[in-house]
């Protein structure tokens, strides 16, 4: 039996390593980005970098505050538009649409989250920007245009995952509710939606992650002007756009400052994830002992 216990032990340990691997990679990523970005904080000063209003690498100004606001505004605006629409559509797909339609539509929607963001960028540039310009004035490049495109890019992510969590609600709950004479809408509102809430919150988090992390599409239509936008029709520059825009040409402190931008972006995402996990924990349905 000795050989058996040894091989069991070895297998378990190797599996532990694969499990911790994802954490090791994150530490590696953080380490490398910190290494490249830290000089910027050191020479330029962390708070001057974080809260500086002016970003002009050629004369040594590296303030990213306007871009932090830009990124957050664009992400929030796109979520405000995307979340209601995608949840209604997810409920339509999960609860209302007949099986045949669902079986065709679900893969199509999932495919849309597989479309490269460059295509969304060009779609925005050629179709959306002129429309926004003629109807709302300005140059057409604006936070609103970027948010519109991000909304469309985020819809598939939220719809697919919310729909799965809605359908994962045990069928018994549906039967029990119908058995008491509840209508389809009452069953969704009082039983299915609350039970699927943790999954739905996860989908919104992932959607938010995708929106704040979007680069190539944002560059083409946000206008990339370093400013805190007055109205939603002002052009704006997001953190990701800043990195992608200037990475090709940056040298010296400018290069480090771009990695500093990546660190700031990373911090914002971690904070958003922690908040979301907390909410998810609070809403988690305490499925205690019992039978179900």
């Amino acid at each position, binding site marked *: 039996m000795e050989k058996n216990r040894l091989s069991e032990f070895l297998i378990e340990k190797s599996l532990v390593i694969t499990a911790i691997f994802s954490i090791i990679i994150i530490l590696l990523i953080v380490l490398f980005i910190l290494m490249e970005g830290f000089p910027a904080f050191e020479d330029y000063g962390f708070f001057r970098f974080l809260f500086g209003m002016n970003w002009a690498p050629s004369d040594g100004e590296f303030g990213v505050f306007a871009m932090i606001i830009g990124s957050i505004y664009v992400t929030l605006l796109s979520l405000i538009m995307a979340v209601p629409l995608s949840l209604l559509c997810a409920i339509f797909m999960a609860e209302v649409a007949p099986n045949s339609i669902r079986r065709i539509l679900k893969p199509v929607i999932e495919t849309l989250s597989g479309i490269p963001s460059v*295509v969304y960028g060009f779609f925005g540039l050629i179709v959306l920007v002129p429309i926004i310009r003629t109807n709302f004035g300005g140059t057409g490049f604006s936070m609103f245009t970027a948010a519109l495109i991000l909304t*469309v890019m985020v819809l598939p992510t939220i719809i697919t995952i919310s729909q799965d969590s809605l359908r994962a609600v045990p069928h018994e709950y549906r039967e029990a509710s119908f058995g008491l004479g509840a209508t389809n809408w009452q069953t969704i509102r009082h039983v299915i939606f609350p039970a699927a809430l943790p999954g739905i919150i996860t989908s919104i988090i992932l959607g938010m992650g995708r929106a704040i992390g979007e680069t190539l599409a944002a560059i083409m239509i946000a206008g990339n002007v370093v400013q805190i936008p007055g109205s939603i029709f002002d052009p704006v520059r997001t953190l990701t756009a800043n990195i992608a825009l200037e990475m090709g040409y940056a040298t010296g402190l400018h290069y480090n400052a771009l990695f500093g931008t990546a660190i700031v972006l990373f911090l914002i995402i971690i904070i958003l994830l922690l908040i979301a996990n907390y909410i998810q924990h609070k809403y988690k349905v305490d499925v205690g002992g019992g039978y179900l």
Partner: protein
Amino acid sequence: MRGLKSQKIISPKTSQKIMNAIFIISGIITILILVLILGYILIMGLPVVNLEFIFANPIDSGASGGIFQMIVSSIYVTLIAGIVATPLGVGAAVYLVEYAGEGKITKLTRFGAETLASIPSIVYGLFGLAFFVVAIGLGWSLLSGGLVLAIMALPTIFQVSEVTISSIPSSYREGSYGLGATKWQTIYRVVLPAAIPGIVTGVILGMTRVISEAAAVMFAVGSSLSMPLSIFDPGRPLPLHLYILATEGISLENAYGTAAVLVIIVLVLTFVSNYLVDKYQRKIMGR
């Protein structure tokens, strides 16, 4: 048991009709918007796509000729991602579900996977350059690009495998333990075979997630036009080719053609994974 009268102004029946209408309308609007984009790509792209476009090599940096090299690069890079990420993702899922239970490592790994899934692809691009290309010295090659994509595919493969393995009924495991099997024998002989369809779906979803990445591989894969002979040569996967054709104004038509080919590949992969999920769920639930 005296009956109580309903005090609600709108009766449940009418609110049901109203809400049903709202769901249907919003469903149709959303789907129309999404299909509009898919249609936009296919209409703009398909005229360019024919057998010659797919199997010919690009001429004068992609302005004409085909995209065969790009398809080969994409296959190389996605396969590397799958081969590297699958054992890691499945191994982590097996450990979490079978060994760790709700311990500290589980929470940490789950949070790790969630963070990896929400890191913007541009940050992956920087990391790919700084770590794989420079630090490890793999240089600009399909391998560096593939490894970056492996990290991006890892969370998806891990999360889907974890759900699949934990949905395997514990009665399977008890049956195997009952016959004196060790933990690993149970996992290897009973749990994994039952979870294979779910895991395969997870791998396909992971690959679909990374096949359309341009920003992540931009600085790692070298974007060279010539046919890659081995994984140590640089190459230019489809999304990167699409990005360069579009932004350098080389040829917008070919850019849309490349996008159309990519969309078709993703469409096929997604339909396959959905079919697998349906078949797998019907088998497990016996619905």
